[in-house]
């Protein structure tokens, strides 16, 4: 969540911008360009697209600032504009593939207890973390998430926003945010487990 000072600063900048002060826009540009670009980049994984989205968002902030009524935080408004522009970009590029998220859960027996061996790779990832292969696997797995789960996962776990803030941006209830987040994490955990299990088998054969 933005701190009270950040919120107060945003409100002041919005007021100044509405009053026609160009310096206020420059300050907003400086404060928000990285946030806008980072979100667009993590959603599209494409530098050119992220640049286009950032430009579009800056223009929208400038043109539509008068329509911003301050019902939610300015930062939430900026994130929403960014996501809308990102979705438009993604729509023109590809059809969304359908990915089933069910495979994220382990096998349970009839009483609800786990049926399969669960390997714990959580302590052995340090040496792998910075390899390009691991990085590629993670990027690809996140890209595979359906849009609804992906956006929640990126805002909450990657950008580190609070659950409440994500709900505010996406106009979702807290339980809805958590449910999408949980599904995304289960799906990604499964993908990473497959990778690390395979990696360990590969290393032990060497």
């Amino acid at each position, binding site marked *: 969540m933005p701190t009270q000072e950040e919120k107060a600063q945003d409100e002041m900048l919005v007021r100044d911008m509405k009053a026609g002060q*160009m310096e206020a*826009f*420059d300050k907003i*540009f400086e404060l928000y*360009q*990285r946030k806008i*670009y*980072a979100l667009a*980049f*993590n959603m599209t994984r494409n*530098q050119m697209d*992220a*640049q286009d989205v*950032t*430009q579009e968002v*800056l*223009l929208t902030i*400038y043109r539509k600032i008068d329509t911003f009524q301050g019902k939610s935080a300015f930062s939430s408004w900026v994130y929403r504009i960014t996501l809308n522009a990102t979705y438009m970009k993604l729509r023109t590029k590809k059809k969304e593939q359908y990915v089933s998220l069910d495979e994220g*859960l*382990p096998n*349970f027996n009839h*009483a*609800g*207890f*786990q049926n*399969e*061996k*669960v*390997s*714990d*790779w*959580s*302590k052995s*990832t340090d040496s792998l*973390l910075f390899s390009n292969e*691991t*990085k590629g696997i*993670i*990027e690809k797995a*996140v890209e595979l998430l359906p849009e609804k789960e992906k956006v929640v*996962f*990126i805002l909450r*776990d*990657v*950008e*580190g926003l609070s*659950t409440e803030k994500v709900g505010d941006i996406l106009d979702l209830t807290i339980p809805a945010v*958590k*449910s999408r*987040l*949980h599904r995304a*994490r*289960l799906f*990604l*955990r499964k993908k*990473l*487990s497959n990778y690390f299990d395979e990696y360990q088998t590969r290393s032990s054969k060497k």
Partner: protein
Amino acid sequence: MICCKECIDLLCDYFEGTLDPDTAASLEDHFKDCPPCVSFLETYRQTSDLCRKTLTPVEIPEPVQIKLRDFVKNHIQSR
């Protein structure tokens, strides 16, 4: 005792710290007796950490920064 399936359903709330104390306690009881769920918990947590470390920070590349500054100068400040 709660089963593994219920345990996994509660993980998100467990990490958010939003479970009521009784439920959190029965979850922790389950972990004491269930190594597979402990492994699941650790890897669930590690998944978020790994993804964050891999995907952040996103810095704007220098050429893009220049383009953005030019864009603002030409399309916004000149109005």
